[in-house]
């Protein structure tokens, strides 16, 4: 009984979430904030992981990250909608729909072509955003402070409340995704990654898998963008810039596609490395970040998820070498 309970995904997740929420009371404010931001990035990373399980990597998640952030921001500024949870949900839906629309265009391509075309999409959006002065052009704009079910927390608690919300959202998304990964369609996606032709010869559509995964990734990317915008209280076209997309890809590759929580850990790691190298080496932080990226790709090629791949059990125990 106990063993079953401990192996239960929901139990594990709830345990982890409770611990993190409690931990949030004791850790300093800046860390609360960094974790929130890591969760925002982690959500986007989860989207890419979902794509990776189907054999694709998008180098243009800034596209949906930006759309999600801007939809949350514009709804906040122009429609007076400030409920963080609602905004997260709406941006998920909006970007999911956008994803669904462009997915058929992208899903015909594979490998580097898919990556580059998605990158091109994000760059076109960047070009549009810096041009539109009505939404702040290159400067972006400030988001109104968030509310939660009509209540606006005082400044002292605002960060913590958002932290709790983002952990709950991340936990919920993680559970759903884990269910998806463990389900038959999730398994078929993994099969597509290994051998698309055979999946077609078994009677399933690899194209549909790609469209579905891209839509999920788009929704999650948008949600991450909204969370990032809400957390920072500001949004600008940099959200869609290719360097931002590059960070998402890095998070996913650092995490590997085997484990869900590893994504958030990878996002946190990147956030900490970037922030501390910026703090202690303001002149050469790019060098340090670059070397960190290269070394982690060389030495952890299948991702930190492979260190605790049994943590949440997955189908594929071994990555193709």
């Amino acid at each position, binding site marked *: 009984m106990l*063993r079953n309970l*401990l*192996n239960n995904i929901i139990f*594990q997740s709830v*345990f*982890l979430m409770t*611990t993190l929420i409690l*931990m949030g009371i004791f*850790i*300093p*404010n*800046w*860390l609360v*904030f*960094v974790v929130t*931001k890591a969760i925002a990035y982690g959500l986007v990373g989860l989207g890419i992981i979902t794509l990776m399980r189907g054999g694709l990597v998008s180098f243009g998640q800034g596209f949906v990250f930006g759309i999600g952030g801007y939809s949350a921001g514009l709804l906040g500024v122009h429609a007076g909608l400030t409920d963080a949870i609602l905004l997260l949900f709406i941006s998920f839906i909006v970007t999911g729909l956008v994803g669904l629309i462009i997915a058929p265009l992208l899903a015909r391509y594979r490998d580097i072509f898919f990556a580059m075309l998605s990158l091109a999409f994000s760059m076109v959006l960047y070009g549009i955003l*810096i*041009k539109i*002065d009505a939404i*702040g*052009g*290159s*400067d*972006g*704009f*400030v988001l109104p*402070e968030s509310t939660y079910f009509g209540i606006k927390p005082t*400044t002292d608690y*605002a960060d913590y409340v958002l932290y709790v919300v983002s952990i709950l959202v991340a936990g919920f998304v993680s559970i759903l995704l884990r269910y998806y990964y463990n389900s038959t369609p999730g398994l078929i996606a993994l099969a597509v990654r290994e051998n698309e032709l055979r999946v077609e010869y078994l009677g399933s559509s690899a194209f549909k898998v790609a469209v579905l995964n891209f839509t999920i990734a788009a929704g999650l990317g948008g949600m991450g963008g909204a969370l*990032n*915008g809400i957390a*920072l*209280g*500001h*949004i*600008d*076209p*940099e*959200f869609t*810039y290719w360097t931002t997309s590059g960070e998402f890809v890095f998070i996913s590759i650092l995490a590997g596609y085997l484990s869900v*929580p590893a994504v958030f*850990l990878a996002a*946190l790691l990147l956030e*900490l490395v970037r*922030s*501390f190298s*910026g*703090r202690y080496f*303001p*002149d050469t*932080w*790019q060098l340090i970040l670059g070397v960190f990226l290269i070394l982690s790709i060389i030495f952890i090629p299948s991702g930190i998820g492979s260190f*605790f791949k*049994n*943590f949440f*059990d997955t189908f594929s125990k071994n990555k193709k070498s």
Partner: protein
Amino acid sequence: MRIFRQSLILLSSVLASFLTFLGTANADGHGEFKLGVVTFLSGPAAEPFGVPAWNGGKLFIKLLNEGKAPAPYNKKGFGGMKITAIPIDESGGATKQVQEFRNLVQRDKVDAVLGYVSSGDCMAIPSVADELKALTVLYDCGTPRVFEDASYKYVFRTAAHAAMDNIAIAKYLIEKGHDISSIAGINQNYAWGKDSWKDFSVSIKKLSPNSEIKNELFPKIFSGQYGTEISALLNSKAKVVHSSLWGGDLQSFILQAKPRGFFKRTQVVFSAGDHVMPGLGNKYPEGVILGARGQYGMMAPDTALNAWWYKTYMDEYGVFPAQPPYRMVQGLMGLKMAIEKAMEKNGGKKPNKDQIADAFKGLEFEAPGGLVQMKLGNGHQAIQPHAIGKTAKDKNGNITVTDIVRYKASCVNPPNGIKAVDWINAGFPGADC
């Protein structure tokens, strides 16, 4: 069970690493003033602005800590407190800067943040600054909107906003009798470039309603290739070409335009054209009308304070200081004065943020570029005198600035409570020249 244990190990290792970070990050010193300094240390804005500004700031902070600055800045550090500066790179966009700002305030627990060249960052930071109750000094950015669209308690800007750069140039052109029957502009396609052109072209239209506006070019920022734009501007045969280009873009524009006779065929005005002079030296064209965003560098006033600063910087770095170091030092001086004023009120003890903010409001202080008055935005936004000049070769064949006309702060800045755009559109009511 193994899974459960693993999750515990994972959690505790994460926790442990956090705590390690905490230990390193929190060290509170006495008699110390922690100052976060944010400016461009990488990317295209580093060479023209960030690095020279920080060079100036670094030098001035060192001198302050040694008590070697002249009066009224001769007290050690800030009111006797040693200044510890934490430099942070401003590149990466406004959203990233919000995060860096939070890190400075929450993790490093700085007493104040001085920084921001980019207008986008200046628009993003103040709301967070007030939210975190963090004293913030904007030292360089240009957009007038910061204190026109909102008001903040803990945020101050110690330099005039960009409206005066272009108003003064328009006035100069008319006063000196230049032909302004037609004007054209080349400005970068973002807030700074667009605002600058708007301020300039509207000012000209107000002062000389008959002048015709020809090309309004807005090339992409950091594009670096201006061959086509130069052709188009030359083709337009506009009498005056205005530009607020800066940094590498301005240098590339000059290098590409000069051999094509651009500066001989049309009167060029650069609203912020001085900061590339130390680098370009004699490659800088003659006959260009330029501003320095204040009385800085070659257009600085003849005061003892300026003479000291000019020489100190020159001795240290081997080039003369252009606007960036002037502006950062101006910010440091304002902050120092506010702190020391608040300290006096507080009986010589280290004042808190609210006390410093109170003291800062409406402050007036003498800087190398002239008298700075925190007069706009209800005492949060500075105005300062301005100067416009024209480049020429001196008798040794070196490029210098001549024909300097100085403008009172109240002549080229709007009065408190009126937006810069409205003031220009209304034809500068109440300008005290």
